[in-house]
């Protein structure tokens, strides 16, 4: 497998704050890689470094086989980026936004016409092409932003918190869309603080905490490392304790031996939130 993204001891500091702390990461060609972590964990800063927007303080970083610091122009040709904030021009229509992105990606007039028509069909928004951006729904805007990032057919697509602010139904539609893109050959690097998104969408997940990568594996692999079954115990003083077990039988045996102090006991399959709790002692949503 070829590494699409490779970082070695990558650091980014803002004064005394280490936004990225010795990040060693490799993302393989063709996979959907998810960066999971709470707000402020360093996910967006990492994307900004990988996409040439922010200069790293130290360490090595290459994207698409090119060094981000010394060969930014080559990196820019390899990547498409959808930022967390909707970075479309609200004074323009969906079509005009796409036209602008096609122009700054150096597509010729005929290429522009062809790719825009193709992508409008692909995102199923051909009928809304001439509407101003603000007239579109949140999900439609996100699709237009993704289409803009795909105009030059990038090999690697960065999605920073792609489903923030979207309702559950739109979120699931967007996941299908991302899967389709990946199936069509685009490597996806996405950040999220939604546990479910990382679990159902990503081939591999990296968990970020205070600028450090604390675990990387497939969602199943990460869950198995902490234990596939979890016992959640709510005590009288309203604290929740977690115990992890390799299987349900072991969890059942543990529950039988619990004292009466345990007010409520839940046995369930573990998820990536549990992995985060086990690794950091905090919930993703606590940050």
């Amino acid at each position, binding site marked *: 497998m070829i590494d699409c993204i490779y970082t070695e001891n990558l650091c980014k500091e803002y004064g005394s704050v280490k936004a990225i702390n010795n990040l060693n990461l490799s993302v393989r060609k063709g996979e959907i890689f998810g960066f999971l972590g709470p707000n402020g964990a360093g996910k967006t800063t990492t994307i900004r470094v990988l996409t040439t927007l922010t200069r790293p303080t130290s360490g090595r970083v290459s994207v698409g086989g090119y060094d981000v610091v010394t060969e930014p122009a080559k990196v820019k040709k390899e990547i498409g980026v959808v930022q967390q904030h909707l970075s479309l*021009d609200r004074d323009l229509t969906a079509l005009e936004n796409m036209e602008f992105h096609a122009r700054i990606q*150096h597509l010729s007039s005929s290429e522009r016409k062809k790719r825009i028509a193709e992508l409008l069909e692909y995102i199923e928004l051909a009928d809304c092409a001439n509407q101003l951006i603000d007239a579109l729904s949140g999900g439609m805007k996100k699709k237009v932003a993704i289409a803009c990032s795909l105009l030059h057919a990038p090999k690697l697509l960065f999605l920073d918190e792609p489903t923030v602010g979207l309702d559950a139904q739109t979120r699931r539609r967007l996941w299908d869309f991302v899967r389709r893109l990946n199936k069509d050959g685009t490597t996806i690097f996405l950040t999220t603080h939604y546990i479910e998104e990382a679990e159902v969408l990503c081939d591999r997940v990296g968990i970020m905490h205070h600028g450090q990568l604390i675990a990387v594996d497939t969602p199943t692999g990460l869950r198995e490392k902490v234990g596939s079954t979890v016992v959640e115990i709510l005590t009288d003083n309203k604290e929740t304790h977690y115990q992890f077990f390799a299987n349900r039988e072991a969890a059942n045996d543990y529950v039988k031996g619990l004292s009466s102090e345990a007010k409520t006991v839940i046995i369930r399959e573990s998820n990536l939130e549990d992995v985060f709790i086990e690794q950091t002692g905090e919930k993703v949503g606590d940050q």
Partner: protein
Amino acid sequence: MMGMLGDIYSVFWLDLRVLRRHWMSLIATSLVLPLLYLVAFGYGLGRGMAVDGFPYLSFVIPGIVALTAFSISFNGAASKLQVDKMYYKSFDELLMSPVSSYAIIIGKALIGMVRGAISAVAIYAVGLILAPSMLISPLFFLILLLSCFVFALFGVLIAFIVSSHHGMSNFSTLVILPMTFLCGTFFSLNQLPAVAKGVLYFLPLTHSTELLRSILLDLPFPWLSFAGLLIFGVVFFIGCKVALRRSSV
């Protein structure tokens, strides 16, 4: 070279599209303040007065044309760029594209130049009705375009440097507003002590006012001010390049 020109046009294309959509309101609002200055200072305070041997109205119109070029070019370049950079983050799209930093700077300045030139020409046209003795000269249009471009570069530079709405507001109050009243728009710099006059020559609007006034009133061409304006243009461009270099890889 063709690639660079294409990139400049691509950056300019977006803002031009927005201008085409809102041209009526953008131009109408940009004319309100200069027209008020024209009425208040030209007709109100200055009626019957003479400055440097010219009727005050003839003296003040070139100054108001330069002032319009300055304020509209500066704001026309700075305001949308600042919003795109700070709030919508759409400026990041340009930084992540293969477009060169030179093309970004020039493309972003061009929209300020166009807006400033349209408004200044409109004020000039009104001025011609009020003071028909003013000259119509191709050199006027050349210097006007140069002034607008330099002021727009100034706007791009400040939008790159200032990182908050509050900061922009402070800059306007502390720098732009004093320039409006001190750079020879409404009075002759010859009335000031030599030291004060010298200080005001460190402001770009002073040179633009001198140039446009000399052309419209058929005075000797102030080559020093022409050089001054060019130097300001080069300094602003280099400043933009440095600021852009600091903001991304």
